[in-house]
Every structure is written in structure tokens, then in C-alpha cells.
């Protein structure tokens, strides 16, 4: 259950996880990116019509501002990254932004998590021992987006992917896919189906990182491939 039991094989960095997640995006998708790893997905959206949604009411914005001249202090992601406009962009108030979320108008939300169960239960708003939480927009997103993908680093942290949550639940049975540093796992009918693994990782290696019983995909387990030549996608073996 510790990283020392892991094979001497590479793993995905936070940016690498974001690259893998973004490869699932399709032209026309409306997608909300949570703070942290999910927001890194925006690095990989160029000219395609993928509409990114920031829950404070900005939809379809362009890339991150690169120079001070491009920065408009009133135009930023929910994570406060300055962004530039782009045709098709639209601004709305917070209530409408959540009408969009709750009404099922988002194709997918990419979230971080403290913990996910094999049933797809998500915990990401209340740390054990805390007196309060930070639920933000996560509960609306997790309950209502058509598809919920969680970015998860399995390697450095224990008890991330579990049989039953031992933290406060954000939303029940909502997570469709985990994209982790070692592979891609789909949650279907209470089972954890391993679709892809990082080269060098076997199902048995992966199994050591979680108490959840991992099941190989019936069509076989593919290798994770990243369509990018950035040099910050992989942790060395």
C-alpha cells in the first residue's frame, strides 16, 4: 500500500493526468474544470470548440493570458487564472451558471477528490477533523453533470480509492471515471474496470494501491498514451 511497493515504472504527473483527461474531450463539449489538476486540462485545448465553464459564470473563454497586456482583472477562471475572450464566450450570473450545471447542460465535470468509493461516491469538501468545509460548486457539479471524471493521484496518498467512504460524502454514485497517475479506471455498476494502465504497470501492481477489487476491462487493458510532447507529463521510473 506504499509507493515503495510500486514497480520501477513511470507514472503520470499532474500535468500528465490532465493531458489524459483532456484526450476524452469531444468537439462541442461543455466542460467544467475544478481547481487544481482539472484546471490544467485547459493547457491542452487549442482551437477546438470545447467550451470550458467556470462556475462563477464564464463559459467558452479562451486560453490563459500570456502577457500583462492581455490581462483583464475582471476576466479569470474560478481559480483566478487570467484568461482572454474568444468568440462564442458568454458571461452569466452565478445563479444562471448553476442553472446550467443543475439542469444537466454540462457534458462533463472534472473534479479533484479526497476520496472516491467503488460505488462512485465522491468526498471532496470536508477534511477529517475540520470544523467546516469548502463545498463551493462541487456538489452541484457532482450531482448534476452528465459525466463526472475525477483526477486522482493514487501513488503518494493512501485510502484515496476505497470500498466505502470514511469522509463526508459530496454526492452518491456520481463518479464515472478515475484518471489516475497510473491508469484509467471506470466505475460501472459498483465495479472498478481498469481500461488503461501506464506502461510498466500491471493489474497486480495497481491492485496494491487500493483496497478496491480492480477488474480488467473485457476488451483488455490498453496502455495510457499521451498525445503531447511536453516534457512535464511523466514522472521518471
Amino acid at each position, binding site marked *: 500500500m506504499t509507493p515503495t511497493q510500486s514497480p520501477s515504472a513511470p507514472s503520470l504527473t499532474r500535468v500528465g493526468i490532465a493531458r489524459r483527461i483532456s484526450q476524452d474531450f469531444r468537439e462541442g463539449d461543455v466542460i467544467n474544470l475544478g481547481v487544481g489538476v482539472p484546471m490544467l486540462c485547459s493547457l491542452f485545448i487549442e482551437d477546438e470548440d470545447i467550451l470550458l465553464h467556470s462556475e462563477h459564470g464564464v463559459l467558452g473563454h479562451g486560453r490563459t493570458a500570456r502577457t500583462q497586456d492581455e490581462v483583464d482583472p475582471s476576466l479569470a477562471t474560478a481559480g483566478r487564472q487570467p484568461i482572454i475572450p474568444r468568440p462564442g464566450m458568454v458571461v452569466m450570473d452565478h*445563479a444562471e451558471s448553476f442553472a446550467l450545471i443543475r439542469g444537466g447542460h454540462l457534458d462533463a465535470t472534472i473534479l479533484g477528490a479526497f476520496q472516491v468509493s467503488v460505488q462512485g461516491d465522491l468526498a471532496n469538501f470536508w477534511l477529517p477533523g475540520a470544523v467546516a468545509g469548502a463545498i463551493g460548486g462541487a456538489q452541484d457539479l457532482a450531482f448534476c453533470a452528465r459525466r463526472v471524471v475525477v483526477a486522482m493521484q493514487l501513488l503518494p496518498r493512501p485510502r484515496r480509492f476505497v470500498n466505502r467512504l470514511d469522509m463526508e460524502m*459530496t454526492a452518491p454514485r456520481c463518479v464515472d471515471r478515475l484518471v489516475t497517475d497510473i491508469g484509467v479506471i471506470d466505475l460501472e455498476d459498483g465495479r472498478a474496470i481498469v481500461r488503461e494502465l501506464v506502461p510498466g504497470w500491471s493489474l497486480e501492481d495497481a491492485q496494491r494501491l487500493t483496497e478496491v477489487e480492480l477488474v480488467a476491462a473485457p476488451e483488455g487493458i490498453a496502455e495510457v498514451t499521451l498525445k503531447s510532447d511536453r516534457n512535464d507529463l511523466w514522472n521518471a521510473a
Partner: protein
Amino acid sequence: MINKVVESAAEAVADIESGAMIAFGGFVGVPGVPSTLIKAIAERDLRDLTIIACESGRGRAGAQSYGANQGGQPYIPEPEDGVYPVGYLAELGQVSKAITTFSSLNNSNFDGPLEAGVRRGDVEIELIGQGSLCERLRCGRAGLGGVYTPVGAGTKIGEGKDIRHFDGVPHVLETALRPDFAIISAYQADRFGNLIYRYGARTTNPVVAGSGKVTIVEVEEVVDYLDPQHIVTPSPYVDRIVLSDRRLMVR
């Protein structure tokens, strides 16, 4: 002649009393927080406020930590003169209850001012998701008693609330919030109180507007004319207008 412009922020907030319920517009780190009005409230000797805000985890002491925690990506820094977040009122001990979506910093090494208040035993936190908070405030503005949302059913957030099933799906009753004061920030106003916002600084400001018995807005500019088709907040929702100390767009 209608003219809702008030001379100063201090004058605009002079009739807020201890024990009042106050809703604030604005969202976490992005512009749109009514900093000038929050500073004016902070300068008054108030106690037992109930605050309603999307984000109230950070005080002034913690104001820098949010933006810095972005893994090396660029972010918009605080202005040098600082911003007065809603959590500052908690830092000063003015707050006895917060209805909010971010009451904590989710940082196990550091308590925000509300968290510290809960540990002391003199602050109560009612945590709620952003969508439900917006609907509760919209109910206040729109004269509705409440709404049923699927969000939160079966979780800590839905505990103790009325549940009703629609098409077999459990929904939670979220009831109207009608604060005594609604405190917001906008880009431009006309003398009637019609408002427009700049890009992503809109956030919860138009949602909070009109929810309170009295709505006070800080703006960067008061102008003679706004295009009727571009106005976001209609004038009847606004009672008092003051000029903001923090003028991001107008220089």
C-alpha cells in the same frame, strides 16, 4: 428626480445594526467583492451579524494564500492596497453565523477566521453548495418560499431538510433567504440604480441584488446612460449607490 447615489460608503452602511443578516456578492479571488462596503462595515462597532456569502473562509491575514496556491500557474495578484473579503468581518469578531459555500481554507495547517470562531464556540456555520445558495437568494428577490433541488439529498448538506421525490429522485427543499441588507459590487450604475458588471466580476452580485430589504452597491462609475438591453440588474433591486475605492477598469 430619482438619484440613489449616496455620498460615502460610511453613510450607506450607517443604519446596519448588530444582529443584522447581510448577504454579500462576490466570489473567492476573482474581482467583484464589495470591498469598499465591507471595509465600511468593518469600521463600525457591530456584533452578532449573520453573513451570507459564497466565500467567507479567508480574512485579510489569509488573503494572499488563495492565489498563491495555484501550482505555479499565473494568477491575478491582490492589489497592493489589499482587498477586504467578507471573512474580515469574522476576523474582527463581528460574525456569529455564516451561511456560505467556502467556510474553510481546506488546509489542515491553518484555520480561517470562521473556523477559529467555531473552535472557540462563538460562530455557527451553515454550509451549502453554490447552486442552492444562489437559489435561496433568488427566492428572496423573487418572492418565492423555496425550491426543490436534487443537490445535497443524502448528504450532510441535506440533513434535516424537507425531502420530496420528483420522478423518483429525492429533492431537498431549500428555503428563501431574505436578508436585512444586500451588499454588492458592480461596474457601472445610472442614477436609477440600473447596473452592469464587467465580465467575470458579475458572479453572485446580480443574485444577491434585491434579495435584501435594502440593497447597497459599490460601483466604479456612475454614468448618465446605460443601454436598456445590456443592463443586468434592474433599478428596483437597488436602493443605494456608492463609489468604490477599488477601481479596476476605470483609471
